[in-house]
């Protein structure tokens, strides 16, 4: 996949995005525009457009899935504001600003509508985009989505455990978590991870509920919710809440998988998104 920086807002981007069908993560194209906001978008593949909204750790962490999806879709994977520069959140203060931002991104990409899929934090954003701008989303795929709260099965506090214990919340099998390496972690990696977690926490703290339950009735796209039955971060019961609140939703529960579905059930995830395409 290839990273491109696009400009948001009128006028539309002057440069034609460089469409490289080969999957590459190297190139980056910077385009300035009048409002000064830029967006890094990773792209890969050909086919009908699919917008991928990444998980807790940024686009590159999701690369294996994106590369597999590129076999059948034109994948557009914007990096969430804040992940590259926390100052981007000065103008994107709440969940509505963030939904508007993704509407701007789709404008800039000249995508009137697309299949929209995401995982975890990204699935919450995908649901918000579909609820705020129903006509943007032709099919919606939510993988272990955040965004709802139920007192009977609360979402676990991801930042209420020591960092070393996070894998136990996120993975059914914590040995699947990427290693932290040996010795002192690289400062730049610590900074990048802090930016990512700071951004995610900004939209999830202290309770990951920004009112999505009130808006899901607006979602028009046929929706698939995929969840691991061993998810200790977002309990699998939330599947029922999403299915109940979204007008046209079905679900698939993957036995033995935890929250990090891309690592723990990559084939099932790919198969689910492939099936969505065949129905599209």
């Amino acid at each position, binding site marked *: 996949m290839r990273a491109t920086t696009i400009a948001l807002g009128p006028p539309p981007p002057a440069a034609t995005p460089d469409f490289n069908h080969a999957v590459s993560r190297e190139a980056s194209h910077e385009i300035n525009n009048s409002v000064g906001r830029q967006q890094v978008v990773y792209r890969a593949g050909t086919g009908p457009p699919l917008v991928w909204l990444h998980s807790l750790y940024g686009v590159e962490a999701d690369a294996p899935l994106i590369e597999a999806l590129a076999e059948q879709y034109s994948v557009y994977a914007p990096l969430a504001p804040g992940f590259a520069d*926390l100052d981007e*959140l000065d103008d994107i*203060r709440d969940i509505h600003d963030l939904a508007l931002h993704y509407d701007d991104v789709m404008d800039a990409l000249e995508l009137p509508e697309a299949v929209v899929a995401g995982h975890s934090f990204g699935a919450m954003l995908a649901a918000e985009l579909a609820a705020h701008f129903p006509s943007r989303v032709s099919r919606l795929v939510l993988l272990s989505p955040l965004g709802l709260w139920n007192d009977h099965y609360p979402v676990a506090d991801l*930042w*209420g*455990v*020591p960092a070393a*214990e996070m894998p136990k919340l996120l993975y059914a099998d914590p040995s699947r978590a990427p290693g932290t390496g040996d010795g002192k972690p690289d*400062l730049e990696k*610590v*900074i990048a991870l*802090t*930016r990512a*977690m*700071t*951004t*995610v*926490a*900004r939209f999830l*703290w*202290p*309770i990951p509920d920004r009112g999505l339950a009130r808006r899901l009735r607006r979602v028009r796209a046929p929706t698939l919710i995929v969840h691991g039955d061993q998810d200790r971060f977002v309990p699998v019961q939330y599947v029922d809440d999403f299915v109940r609140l979204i007008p046209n939703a079905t679900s698939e529960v993957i036995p033995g998988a935890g929250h990090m579905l891309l690592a723990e059930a990559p084939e099932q995830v790919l198969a689910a998104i492939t099936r969505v395409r065949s129905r599209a």
Partner: protein
Amino acid sequence: MKFHFFHLMPYPDLPDDFRQRYHGVWVDLPATELFDATVGHHAYNDYLDELEYADQVGFDGICVNEHHQNAYGLMPSPNLMVAALARRTSQAKLVVMGDSVALYNPPTRVAEETAMLDVLSGGRLVAGFPVGTPMDTTYCYGETPATLRDKYREGVELVLRAWTSTEPFAFNGRYTQLRYVNIWPRPLQKPHPPVWIPGSGSVETWDWCADHSFLYAYLSYFGYLRGQKVMQGFWEAVAQRGLEPNPYRAGFLQFVAVADSDAEAERLYAKHALYFYNRCLHLYPGFASPPGYTSLATIRQGIEGQIKLAADRNKELEDLTWSQILDRGYVVAGSPDTVVQRLTEMEQTLRVGHLMVLLHFGDMPKETVLYNTTRFAQEVMPRLRPMWSEWEDQWWPRDTLAKLAEPAPVPAPVTA
């Protein structure tokens, strides 16, 4: 230099197997299992007695602070404690160290309560405004870590304007919107009480304090050896702005234990110091570093917050010994000569005009606190007092009324 008696007001009755039974002293420690209100009643009253005694024996200031949902310090509201102290003290300034502005909604509540305290005490208030620990602010009070500091600064700006504006104003902030700000009463001190900022090593706070002429105080549990890097950062920020390196711009907190000899100090104080480090500072690492609480610039600087430091050292604190506590400078203890020598060295290294001392540790009984306080006031304070006398303290109340109202004796009931 000036001396302040600081009280943390810990819960004094945590069980011996506290560390084994509970993962931490803060946020989710079950009060129904551990908090006995009768113990609390006596603790509060003893602690207020100790602060009042410090006023009696000549401390310049008496200090209290704000923490939530914990057994480390029983003061969710420091202002309530100062209200109690205002009536039974007369000399010492009342240092609230302080109100966590971002946690008050709206922050004008802080402007109002501090104005009340300043008027009630005859202009003796020093108003401290900490950001607050990660546990207090983000876990107990639910503040988003990423916006906490911005909200805090906006709140401090609102408090300053509320204290000083000559007419009602509208405030359209990012975190607070008020159509009419017009607080009653107004502070006695003009333009407003001194503002002290307790910091824990954030680089932005050094710049902010230097730019606004706020006093910067480093409240360290780990002694002055650890405080050097932090205070050096502050003095560099002062120098960069071409400001005078007036030591009264800065404050520092230190545990001190005075006795006849070093051996006697161990006998009197060691177990209470260990109670503090082993139980009161038993911090769960899961509540120590919410993402966004520490700025990227501070992470780059390699300075770790006080809380993260304590949480990271949790294992080490379990096996801490009195001699390690002394060697590392966590507590300055011993004979008056030893204490004077160590504090002189500390003063020269850190350059602080305001020394805050903790003379009560953990579960220390009142008689021991009063003993420690007496010896410090009589045998240590006078010898250090002349230091920095060539500088003028501009961070101290100057409008205190010469003659304060005295609480009148309660009259006997009049029979009709």
